[in-house]
């Protein structure tokens, strides 16, 4: 048994999950997929991922933030690095969503689509 690091991917776009899973697997990670926020939080409790990657916009504009909050207050999610994915430019001038009053902290925000080498580089860095 090797000790592959576990990545939990949470996104409501099945194809995006699959595409990203393929890249991460090629990078030597064990990948777990969840198609919505609730499934993702539940899965985190059972698989104990080493890192989680969460899409910001799922059922709602800011569902990703809810997931991050719930992970951050759970035992499994407290310590691990979290990456937020976004198709909108989070720092952009025109956010059309209302962010929660207190933004839960993530370790990194990446914009979709993500270059394969960048994804592997950042995940590797955060897991070091």
């Amino acid at each position, binding site marked *: 048994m090797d000790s592959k690091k576990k990545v939990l991917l949470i996104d409501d776009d099945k194809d995006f999950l699959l595409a990203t899973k393929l890249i991460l697997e090629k990078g030597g990670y064990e990948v777990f997929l969840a198609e919505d926020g609730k499934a993702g939080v539940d899965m985190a409790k059972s698989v104990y991922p080493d890192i989680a990657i969460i899409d910001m916009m799922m059922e709602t504009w800011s569902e990703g933030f809810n997931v991050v909050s719930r992970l951050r207050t759970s035992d499994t999610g407290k310590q691990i690095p979290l990456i937020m994915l976004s198709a909108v430019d989070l720092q952009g001038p025109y956010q059309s969503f209302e962010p929660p009053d207190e933004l839960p902290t993530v370790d990194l925000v990446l914009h979709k689509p993500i*270059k394969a080498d960048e994804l592997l580089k950042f995940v590797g860095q955060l897991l070091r």
Partner: protein
Amino acid sequence: MEEKAEYSARILIVDDEESILDGCRQALEKSGYQVISTSNGPDGIRLARAEKPDLAFIDLKMPSCSGMDIIELLSKEMPGIVLIVITGYASIVSAVEAMKKGAYDYLPKPFTPDQIRAVTKRGLEHRFLKIEADRLREEKERMERSFITFVSHEMRSPLVTIMQYFESLKVIADEGLAPNIKDIIDRCEKRLQSLHDLIEHWLDLARIEDGSFSENKAPLILNPIIERSIEELNPLCQKREIILDACLDDDCVARIIGDYESLIRVFTNIIGNATKYTPPGGKITVRINHDDYYIYVHISDTGTGIPQDKLPFIFEPFFRVKGKEERQKGSGLGLTFVKKIMDAHNGKVDVSSQEGVGTTFSLRFPRLYEIREPIRSSP
């Protein structure tokens, strides 16, 4: 107006003559309208406020209060209400005056039940058309707003996913791809990237139109913004062997009122354009200076230049200057975005160019004078 057939319009009558009130009430109730009435001016105003009638008949001459004042007040307070003045033959002049103050029509005394019904019908038609027009305008605005959401969800999301698949495809295939297949993938990726840029630019423009951008304006210094834009484009310039040179006036602390992120995109757009049209070995220079009133930024390249006859059109959406060779195409919206953002900053963008020599974009921003507000140096 069929859907209104079941709706019983509410009509208010204010007249000091009881006989007129009775006559009107009978005529209108017979046609199925709800009628409320009073012989007292101030009561009329109270009733209008409480009952919100669709239409009101107001007698101009009443002892308790002037009908003209009621007209003036109600037309200001209740913009949708249709006001009709009741007036004696002798006072057509005052009827005209009332219409200037917001009445829609007038009804001269004496009148028959048919006449009041006809005037009522016309007045209500006017009201319902106006309501319908307002509703349609709101609907149109709502659709425009939701179209932005539609584009970002239904077009951008699948595109992003396809781009992600291409990334995974390259990773999985690793080095095992035949060169011709690799070439096809590269070409697909370029086209996908163009489409992605187009959608992003289009969304940028749509969001400028819906006004959400102006809320983010703050006092800022341009130097760090230009520096960050240059940082962003440096790798590309190095790859294309273009020198990117910035002569930033170090002590230029003059500020403007602006939006940090969209200004970065203004500069990356112009400098990015310059890289597209500048051959390897060329140079792009960014200079900033200021006087008492304005801050100027000049971005010059030693590129192919833009033909004089094309210059007036380069800020138009989807206008492209065709190069001799096939280059990576832009979205055709980049400079339109630049122009709109400059307009939104009360700024100005000019371009001068000489074919074979180069192009210079000159941006001018009005300087900010107040010095008490905190400087926003980062986003």
